[in-house]
């Protein structure tokens, strides 16, 4: 691999990040990614704090979704993809040799841009992560289903129709169902890839409310286009541009007194 270490954009920026008392859940160190010959991520350095909400903002094509999808190695599905650098979880590199990708994904729930419930009943959707784990005991599944749906603020709406097809729900409900599915196996990290971009304002408000509730229980990384949303829900915010992490810090700082002019231009709407 002819990986040339790219010049660092800035020295570890975490100094103004809101530190969690429990430390970092994910530690991304000098991470680079290439699609074929074009480099999509350049030397990302970032510590995601445990139990906090971290938002990634930036214009389209800046690599924020790519970075998010590296965290549970969803990018493995893409042919011709290369990475260098490290993403440390509990002291081991998830791109290191001998990593069990399936076990990794079980520790990371993921919610996608468009609601993607499976063509099964609501109940089967929620307990799917447990089923693929080989858990068949009805009591455990029932309990998990209720807990996950309650956490996703969907229990009251769904409890009477657990055996109906999930595809019959509204878009907002489907997205909350996907969140319930994402947290059903009690992961450590919840990755959210623009979870509200396909939803109307009311459904968006519900999801944001939900993120507030989940904060503290899970480490949440959310990619969003919507700067107000990032400001509302996150503790720390990373601003990405052209594959580089321009600035990363406490959300208030990023939105009120960013250190870089690019960030300032973006958050004030001057470009992007």
């Amino acid at each position, binding site marked *: 691999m002819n990986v040339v270490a790219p010049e660092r954009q800035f020295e570890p920026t975490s100094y103004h990040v809101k530190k969690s008392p429990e430390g970092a859940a994910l530690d991304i160190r000098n991470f680079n990614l290439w699609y074929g010959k074009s480099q999509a991520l350049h030397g990302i350095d970032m510590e995601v704090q445990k139990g906090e909400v971290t938002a990634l903002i930036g214009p389209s094509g800046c690599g924020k979704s790519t970075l998010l999808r590296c965290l549970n190695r969803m990018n493995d599905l893409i042919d011709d993809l290369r990475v260098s650098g490290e993403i440390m979880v509990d002291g081991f590199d998830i791109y290191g040799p001998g990593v069990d990708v*399936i076990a990794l994904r079980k520790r990371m729930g993921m919610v996608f841009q468009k609601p993607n419930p499976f063509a099964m009943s609501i109940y089967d959707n929620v307990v799917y992560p447990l089923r693929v784990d080989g858990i068949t005991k009805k009591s455990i599944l029932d309990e998990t289903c209720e807990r996950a749906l309650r956490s996703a603020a969907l229990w009251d709406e769904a409890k009477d129709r657990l055996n109906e097809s999930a595809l019959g729900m509204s878009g907002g409900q489907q997205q909350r169902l996907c969140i319930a599915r994402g947290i059903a196996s009690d992961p450590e990290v919840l990755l959210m890839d623009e979870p509200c971009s396909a939803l109307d304002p009311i459904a968006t408000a519900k999801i944001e409310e939900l993120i507030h509730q989940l904060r503290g229980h899970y480490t949440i990384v959310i990619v969003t286009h919507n700067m107000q949303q990032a400001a509302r829900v996150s503790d720390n915010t990373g601003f990405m541009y052209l594959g580089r992490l321009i600035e990363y810090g406490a959300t208030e700082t990023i939105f009120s007194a960013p250190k870089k002019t690019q960030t300032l231009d973006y958050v004030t709407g001057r470009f992007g």
Partner: protein
Amino acid sequence: MTDILDPHATASGAAAPASTAARDAVAGAAQRGKRVRMLSADLSAVGEPSLWAFGGALALGVILIAAFLAMVTWNGLVTFWPKPIAMVELRDGTLLAGEPTRSSVYRPGENVLARLDEEQIAMIEANGGFSERVLYKTANFDLYGDDFRWVSDFDKAAVTFPPDFHLFERQQWGTFVGRVAGLTIGGEPQAFDHALMQREQSAARRRFAEIRRLERSVIGAINQRMDRERLAIRRANLRFGEDSPRALEQIAASQARIAELEAEFAEVQGRVNAIRENDRRYRVLLEEVNGRTVDTELSQIVRFYAANDIGFFDKLGIYFSRWWEFLSTEPREANTQGGVLPAIFGTVAMTLLMVVFVAPFGVITALYLREYAAQGRLTSIVRISVNNLAGVPSIVYGVFGLGFFAYTMGGSIDQLFFPENLPNPTFGKGGILWASLTLALLTVPVVIVASEEALAAVPRSMREGSLACGASKWQTIRYVVLPKALPGIMTGMILAMARGAGEVAPLMLVGVVKLAPALPVDGFFPFLHLDRSFMHLGFHIFDVGFQSRNSEAGKPMVFVTTLLLLALIVTMNASAVTIRNRLKRKYAGGQF
């Protein structure tokens, strides 16, 4: 402005010359004002001329299919309706009786005109040299050596419909048209009485059915067991060596059992003979229109009715009883009469067996091609080859099936498992197993292509959702992709079924026969006989229409059988579509 006004500049080359005038008009109009410009807009811009072409193509297709279906349905439905019997007196004084079948107009040739008198020639000339003729189904093949006769208008003296003429459907020799000249009941001559004959005929048919049951089931079972003992003797010789003590011991046991079975056989045969003896004392003397008679047992008469002397409801009863006979009995008279039950059974069994083979094979292949194989040049070549397989003539599959399945595979199976039967083949010939495998091979491209499309249509987001939950690739396919793709895969299965059920050419080589002695499923172990040859509706159509001694006699049967085959395929497809729609509903859910 000019850009908007100049759509013709970008129009296709063919349309360009035609629209030159229009362009000039438009260009001129542009200077004059808006209103004119709108009036002279191009037809392809304001109207939908292509809609006519699309609609026309659809209409043409629908008309062709509807006309075909209407023809088959009409001809199929009227076949069993009882027709009147006409008695025709010819000018030379002879009589003939029969059902008028169809008529045509023709121009009598020189040799015909030569034998006619002046009055007849005048008739023809008045008609412009043409004459009409009617085809009568005279039946009575045993007396006339033909079933049909054309009668020209100029030969006809009188046509009447005498009420005492009956139509007799016989077990052998086809139908008979004529009167009852005498009735013998229990050896005693009796005067003809319709009710009495009806009663006695029913009783005689019961005797006939009993004889058939004894011969088929009881004697059939005895024969089956005797065959098994004979094979046991051969097997003992093959296994232990000729004249070895163990072989001799087993042979003696088998021979003892054969002797027992022979005694049993003789006993049953005695019973059959007794019934038959009794049956011979119930007879009917049939007389055709010119007085020639045929003496036959009453039990040989399957059905009889006074064609000109029955009401609508009697006709309806006969109509339905004929349909029932058609659907529930075996064929007789070289398949031109009787029923098609074995063919229905064979068609359904073969198609279902084919689905059992083609479904897993096609779906697994499609899964590999779409989900696992690297999408490169090689995969494309494989995919194109699979698609092209659908274009190989089906008879080629038949040849392959015969050579590979029947002779090679079947031959090996015989060598290994049925050596005692050799040189008679067990699996080493055409049979229902090889036929369904051949058809599975023929239809597998359809299933692969449809399954692949269905798999490709499963959204990527769903797969990602599953993988993100920590599911393995196989779990994702098994729980998320396959259920979602199932309706599409079912569509492929339906297409394959329709194709397979209607296919005839390859079957002629790998196991379909004109008349199968036994169904592939029966009460003898192992109940499902995959080695047996079978009958098939498609082949039945070919056989009756083109291979029978008299294609005119078989023609109605061709229509009825075609109608039945279509109905059968529609039924099978409809049930598959129902299952598919149920699956779709299950997985789609309603939107609110």
